């Protein structure tokens, strides 16, 4: 699964996700990617794209849960992402990771697997690319 999230210079947020699913999956099986609130979500607070065991991300309403925790509990982006990817998704029987950017332009790239192909870039900065633990799993330099 691949995905991207962005905050543009005008403050707009967006999330996109695309996938071939799982190897040897049953034809017709749909994972979390096109299920809004599970694998893909964007609102005024945050944009999120997920990757991993799709059924678990659906059960956890993973992407929307992150937004809800930020909006209603006042959690930071990193706190909300850490809770969902570290607790909620595993509790639902899944593994994987996600990328997220909030309204202030903060980014988080957490995962609970051995690695995640990932990258980030901010205006005026340099591109960051990682696969394993080259940088803390939840942060962007």
């Amino acid at each position, binding site marked *: 699964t691949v995905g991207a999230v962005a905050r543009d210079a005008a403050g707009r947020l*967006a999330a996109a996700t695309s996938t071939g699913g799982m190897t040897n999956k049953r034809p017709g099986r749909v994972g979390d990617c096109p299920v809004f609130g599970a694998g893909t979500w964007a609102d005024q607070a945050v944009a999120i794209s997920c990757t991993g065991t799709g059924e678990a991300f659906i059960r956890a309403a993973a992407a929307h849960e992150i937004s809800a925790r930020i909006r209603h509990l006042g959690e930071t982006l990193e706190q909300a992402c850490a809770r969902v990817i570290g607790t909620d998704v595993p509790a639902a029987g899944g593994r994987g990771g996600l990328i997220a950017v909030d309204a202030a332009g903060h980014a988080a790239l957490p995962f609970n697997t051995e690695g995640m192909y*990932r990258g980030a870039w901010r205006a005026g900065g340099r591109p960051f690319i990682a696969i394993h633990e080259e940088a803390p799993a939840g942060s962007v330099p």
Partner: protein
Amino acid sequence: GWTLAIHGGAGTIPRAALTGGKEAEYRAGLLAALEAGATVLRAGGTAGDAVVEAVRALEDCPLFNAGRGSTFTSDGTIEMDAALMLGEGKAGAVTGVTRPRNPIRAARAVLEGGRHVLLSGAAADAFAAATGLDLAPADYFRTEHRLAQLEAARAQDRVALDHDVPAPARMG
């Protein structure tokens, strides 16, 4: 300023599997996607256009599980899903598509169409064709390494959704 982040999948990624220049190939694919999205944002484009361009680049790279290089179903077919959501509350998605060269552009077409949020299967393929999106034959999406993963899964009689199956076999 703007911020962009991308992912190309998560799972068990043994360092040994990234030898022989493979790691450099993955990093180049990720950088190309960042460049594609950042080019839009640098020019003052929207977050929506940026994420579509970044994902389009990842779909075009056969290393990642989307578009060209997608995983196979148990029937040996390729069925792809894609979704786009904007912070202002607009959304579009497609599931089980087999023909759009870039499924994310089909998702954007659904969003821009405004009448629906999610189209599936043959209807989504037909919508993409009617919208004038680039289509591709089935062979375009197939890669040898994904076929080898399917054959390995079949040989071990793995069921795709068993949670005790190692992630690489399930997710490529």
